[in-house]
Every structure is written in C-alpha cells, then in structure tokens.
C-alpha cells in the first residue's frame, strides 16, 4: 500500500509543481516588463561581450565600446558629427611650428579610485602607450609623440616629431584614454577612469552594470544606472526588446527584423551612420586582381545601391570610396566607377580575362553572408565565376586572409576610425595596395594646416579609388531600435565609444 501512496504523491507533485512554476513566473514576468526602475535605469542590448576590460592588450570593438566616454575619458572627445571637442582638456594651443600642443586641463576631475586628475596622469598615460605595457596594434598612433612636459598640475605640453592633424583626432579615441598610475594593476578586471560611470558589476556571460559616480567632475548623466546586456545574435536582442527586458538594441545587425518595429508606435528605429566600411577586397598582389583592368571591371560590375537594398534592406550609405561620411575629407565618389556591366565586360576582354574563376573568401558574419550572395550574382553577369568559401570569423579569416594573405577576394567590415591610411598606405597590408603614389601625399597632408589636410587627404582617397584598390560597397549603418520613450541615444557611431551619458526617458 505504501508504494501506491508514493506513486500518487509523485503524480500530485508533478501537477502542483507545474502549477507553482506557472504561477511564480507569470507574476514576475509581468513585473519585469513594467519595471518600476524605468526612470532611473536604461538597459542596452549589444552583441559580442568583451573578453576582458583591457583594450591596451586586447583587440576588438567590444571593450572600448563599453568603456570609452563612460569610464575612461581623453583630453578631447569626438562628437556625433565627427568634430573634436574638449573633454579633460578645457582648451589647447599650437606652437613651435604646429608641433607643440599645450593643453590647459580641467580642474577638480578625479578618478573613480579617488585620485585627482593632473598633468602627471597625461604624461603617464601617453608614455604608457609608447611602452611595452601596451600591446595593442593601435599603439603606433602615439609613435609620433616626441616628449610630454608637465608645466603645472593643470598644464601639459606635448611635442610631436612633426606636425600632425591625425594625432589630435586619435587623442579622442582609445589610445588617448587617461589612466591613473595606481589604477592599472588589473586592467583586465578593473577599469578606473575619470568618466561619469564606474562598473558596478560584471556578470560574465550576461551584462556589465554601470553606476553613476557621485563625484564626477562634469554634468551628471540623466539616469543613475545603465546596464549593457550581451547577446549571441540579433534575434535574441529583438526578442528581449519585445518581451520588455531591454530598452535599446544598439548597432542592430539584422535589418530584416526591423519591419515589425518600424510600423509599431511603441518603438523607434534610428538609422545612424558609423565609421565602418564594408570593403570588398581584391588581393592586389595576386592574379587576376594584380591587373588594374580586372579590378576596375569589378568596380563597374557591382551595383552598390542594389547591394545595400538587397543585402541590408536599404540601410547604409553608398559612397564609392573608403571614407565614412563623418570624416572631414569625405566626398561622394560614386561617379568614379558607376554601375556599367558592359564596360566591365570590355575591360575584362581587354585584360584577356573572360570566364574568370575566382575564390571569394567570406567571413562568417551576417553582413558578409548577406553581401556575398548578390555580389556573386552580379559578378556572374559579367563573366566572373566567384566560388564562395566560408571562413570562420575572426580566427580563420585572420589566419588565411589577413596574415597569410592567401585569398583572391574577400569582404569585411573595417571598423577602426579614420582607417583609410592604415588600410592603403601599407603595401604589406592584406589588401596589397602599392602605396608609392600616395605615401608622400599622405605625409604632406598630415603635416599641413587643417584646410591643407582635408584637400591632401581627398587627393589621397581619390588616387586609391582611381586605382580600384578595393571596392567600398557601403558605409555600415548604425541601426538602433528602442522603446519610443528612450531619449539621448547616440545614433551615430563615430568612434569606438558608445556614449551612455545622455540616455534618459521622456
């Protein structure tokens, strides 16, 4: 008889158990979507979690995206229009033949560990970039600094080896981040900066929680807490938005999911611009793309607007050159190689390259797979048969395409800010562009005054495009989907930073 009782108890437990589960979950599910903390916190969904917090030794966009402008600040910052604005420096003056920048520093700023921000920290931070402590490949942006002199607690003079327009901009990116000498012992796990936020908690695999600093030198952020929640893919982010778990989906990578939000008044969709270019690369050092005419044929063969419309639902800007619209030397270069399949075919005939078979190495990223299909079909129309070979990103792609340069054609999103020279002014780079025509031009432009810089860089870019060094398909959009009541979202992604300070609620 006791066995029978046990059996019944088991069945009863099953029923009760499932009821309890349903009851509890229904209750709190409702709570989380109508959260009472809405006015003091904002939750932002992103894809790709930082592996650690140390961008001085680890590459990738995720770390500076979370930390720059929020935890770390530089002497200057780049605003939403791509312009340089004061931040920890109140003002600066140029002297010594435009080689010395004298910065007047903000008083009363402190690091989150309580230490005061002074000119010594500026010297420490810049010299640290030049030392072995930094192993990021971006550190070479500080190679141009000759010396850092501390004039007083609030004044620092930085002398460059030669005048440079690019350097001051770089000071607004992660290489310009100011550290405290006593705050660099555990950069991978602890971030100490002068910014408006400090990291309250990092729930690995889930989220980073930011809390406002009460002793922040500047204007306090609108909300007290911001949570960056990390997801594996775009579908998971929009699911979380629809079920009320997150308030903003930033840099959304799946535009085909947007239609349900665009027509719904509960949400807003922002179509911002970014500094990322979708670059269709052609290995300039390898047949058939060592022939200028074949590269030009590819430029004419591809209808870039059709690529954007098909692959990315029309989001993104077609520019015709490797320069984002927010860079000072941007100009529309779509006319250089208009869509003209007949011309492409005649160029291929001239080069003796009809019925060409090539391999197209496509990294495993949503944008790359989306773009590759239409590119392949347009190439086929002019007689280029591209065979798609998938390469896991980043590991395999970096190994095969980037390091070994064993590829013919590939496509990648180049995300670094103002990276046109990094990509093309280096013959050893995987694109293999022969930089002899632009090398001197680029150096002259960097050392010129501001107008000379813009004109010179325009000339550099035009030369690169004329040589069909690579086909810039479009400027990657920064798509943001958010609850309609969220304000202060930085729609444009101009540097690597995602500035959280203005986020708020209507």
């Amino acid at each position: 008889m006791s066995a029978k009782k046990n059996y019944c108890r088991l069945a009863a437990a099953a029923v009760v158990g499932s009821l309890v589960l349903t009851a509890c979950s229904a209750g709190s599910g409702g709570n989380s979507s109508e959260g009472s903390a809405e006015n003091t916190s904002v939750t932002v969904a992103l894809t790709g979690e930082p592996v650690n917090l140390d961008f001085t030794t680890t590459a990738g966009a995720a770390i500076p995206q979370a930390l720059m402008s929020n935890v770390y600040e530089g002497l200057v910052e780049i605003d939403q229009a791509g312009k340089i604005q004061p931040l920890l420096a109140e003002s600066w003056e140029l002297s010594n033949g435009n080689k010395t920048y004298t910065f007047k520093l903000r008083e009363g700023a402190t690091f989150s560990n309580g230490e005061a921000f002074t000119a010594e920290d500026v010297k420490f931070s810049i010299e640290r970039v030049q030392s072995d402590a930094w192993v990021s490949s971006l550190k070479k942006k500080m190679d141009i600094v000759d010396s850092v002199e501390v004039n007083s607690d609030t004044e620092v003079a930085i002398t460059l080896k030669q005048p440079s327009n690019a350097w001051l901009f770089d000071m607004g990116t992660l290489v310009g981040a100011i550290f405290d000498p006593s705050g660099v012992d555990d950069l991978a796990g602890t971030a100490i900066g002068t910014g408006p936020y400090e990291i309250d908690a990092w729930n690995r695999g889930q989220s980073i929680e930011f809390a406002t600093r009460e002793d922040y030198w500047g204007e306090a952020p609108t909300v007290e807490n911001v949570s960056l929640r990390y997801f594996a893919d775009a579908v998971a982010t929009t699911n979380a938005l629809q079920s009320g778990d997150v308030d903003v989906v930033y840099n959304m990578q799946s535009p085909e999911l947007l239609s349900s939000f665009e027509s719904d008044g509960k949400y807003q969709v922002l179509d911002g611009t970014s500094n990322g270019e979708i670059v269709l690369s052609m290995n300039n050092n390898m047949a058939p793309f060592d022939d200028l005419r074949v590269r030009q044929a590819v430029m004419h063969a591809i209808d870039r607007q059709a690529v954007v419309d098909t692959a990315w639902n029309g989001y993104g800007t077609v520019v015709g050159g490797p320069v984002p619209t927010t860079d000072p030397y941007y100009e529309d270069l779509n006319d250089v190689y208009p869509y003209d399949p007949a011309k492409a075919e005649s160029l291929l005939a001239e080069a003796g390259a009809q019925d060409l078979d090539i391999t197209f190495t496509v990294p495993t990223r949503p944008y790359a797979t989306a773009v590759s299909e239409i590119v392949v079909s347009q190439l086929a129309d002019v007689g280029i048969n591209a065979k798609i070979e998938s390469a896991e990103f980043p590991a395999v792609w970096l190994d095969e395409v980037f390091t070994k340069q064993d590829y013919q054609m590939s496509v990648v999103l180049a995300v670094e800010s103002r990276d046109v020279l990094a990509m093309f002014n280096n013959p050893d780079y995987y694109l293999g562009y022969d930089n002899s025509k632009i090398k001197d031009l680029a150096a002259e432009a960097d050392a010129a005054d501001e107008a000379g810089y813009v004109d010179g860089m325009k000339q550099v870019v035009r030369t690169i495009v004329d040589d069909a060094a690579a086909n810039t398909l479009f400027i990657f959009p920064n798509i943001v989907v958010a609850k309609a009541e969220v304000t202060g979202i930085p729609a444009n992604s101009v540097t690597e930073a995602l500035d959280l300070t203005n986020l708020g609620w209507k």
Partner: protein
Amino acid sequence: MGIRLLTNLVRFAVTYVIATVAVFFFMRAIPGDPAQIALGVNASPELLAKTRAEFGTDRPLIVQYFDWALGLPAGNFGTSYVTRQDISPLIIDRVQVSLILVVLAMLVALLIAVPFGTYAAVKHRNPSGIIISGVSQLGVAIPNFLAGILLVVVFAVGLGWLPANGWTPPGEDFGDFLARVFLPVLALASVQGAILTRYVRSAVMEVMSEDYLRTARSKGLGKLESLVKHGLRNASIPVLTVTSVQLAALIIGAVVIERVFVIPGLGSMLLDAVGNRDLLTVQSVVMVLVAITLIINLVVDVLYTILDPRIRKGA
C-alpha cells in the same frame, strides 16, 4: 561489488586521460592563432611574437600538454590568456548554472514520462493511450533548440507572459529565477520527456507480460496495484539506463539551449571560448563535461546494484 566498482574507476581514469589527449590535440589542429585574435588586425610581427611568448603558445605542444593536463587532477585549469582570469572559479560558477538547468529539465522530463508512459502502457489499446504514444512520437522528432525558439516566439514575444531570455541566480530573486528558467527547462524537458515516455511505456508493457505479474493478479491484486507493487521496480532498470544516457544528451542539449536563451552556463562559455580561440578554456570546459558524463555513468552503475540484487550477486 568491490571489484565491479574498481573496474569502473579504472575505466573512468583511462577514458579521462584519453579524452585529455584528444581534446588538447584537436584544439591545436584547428586553424587560428590566439595571439593574432587577441591583437587583431594591424598587429606587427614583433608584437605577435611577444604575445605568443606571453601566452606560452610558442612552446612545444608536448610541453603545453603536460603543463595543462598535470594541473587538472588538482582542479587547476590555469589562467586564460584571453580573459586573463583564473579559469577554475569561472567554470565553477558556470557549472552550477548548467547543472540547475539540466537537473530541473530531467526532473520535469521524468515527471512527464513516468505517469504518462505508465498510463500509455496500461491503456495501450485505449484511444487515450494511443494519443499519448503519438504525441510523444512527435516530441521525439523535434530538436530542443527548435522547441526553445518556438516557445520564445509564442510565450515571450507573442503573448509577453515570460521573459524571452536571460538568467537570474535563484539566490538573488527566486521568482525571477523561475520566470527565466521556465521556458529553457520546458524546451529541454518536453523533448526529453517525450523520449522517456516511450521508454517507460515499452518497459512497463514488457513487465506487464511477465509471469510474476500474472501471479500477482491471480492473488487478487488490481491491475495498477500489482504494477506498482511488483512491476515498477523491474521496469525501472531499463528506464534508468536510458535516463543516464539521456542525461548526457541533455547536457549537450543545454549547450545549444543556453545559446538560445542567453544563459551564462558552461555551453555559452564553451561557444564563446571557441570563437575567441581561448584554447585553455575550451579544453577545460570540455574536460568538465567529460567528467560529468563519466560520473553519471559511475553513479548509475551503483544505482543498478541497489535496485537489482541480481547484479550485486552476479559480480
């Protein structure tokens, strides 16, 4: 019984050592340089060489292997050169999450399978029994990640009753924990429950045709009573075997389900680590999974001897 246990322990150790060799060398065989991934594009050869030396990936493979494998018995997985964190506490943290998920899913699966499977066996000629059998057939055919995605679409995105994804530790907010764990557990358990229902049904049906059950009936016990008193214990042996195999399958299923529901368990840790070529973390997570599977087998073997005295004596 002692010899049986000893044989099992030796088998456990040998399997584990073979697994370390396989995991280590397979991970080195796939392309991708951890230093290159850590530094990204534009890294100079000098920086790369320096970083490789720092990571220790420039040493001979055999040295790297022993360096890692000899630390394992002490639970010392080393320091990940990608996250720059000690791996052991991270794994302990993640293991708890995955085990909560898997154990809850198994319990729910059994709570579905035992009553429904028994019912379907007892009523195997009735329409109701045939319906249960048919529904479970359908459940077997659905992969659990698909079940997960469908559950999210219906209950989180469509109806808005439950959060779509995420995780709250039970100690932090138990209500929220239940809300978030409900759908992933259901996704895992519904498929497992369907599979187990079929095994329970066939095991019970086999027991029902045994002579001793007919004897029990002839002594005047009812159908259900005789089954509960004399049948279930015998039926539990094949069910236990399948449960242990399915528990291992459930852990693998959890890897995918954790991805779908953004749960910070071992599975999502493993997938992230593979993407970052965080070799030490991948190796360590795989070895933890291997150990869990081997321990389950060991425990099940001990359970056999408790449930069935014949096995105890046979050894």
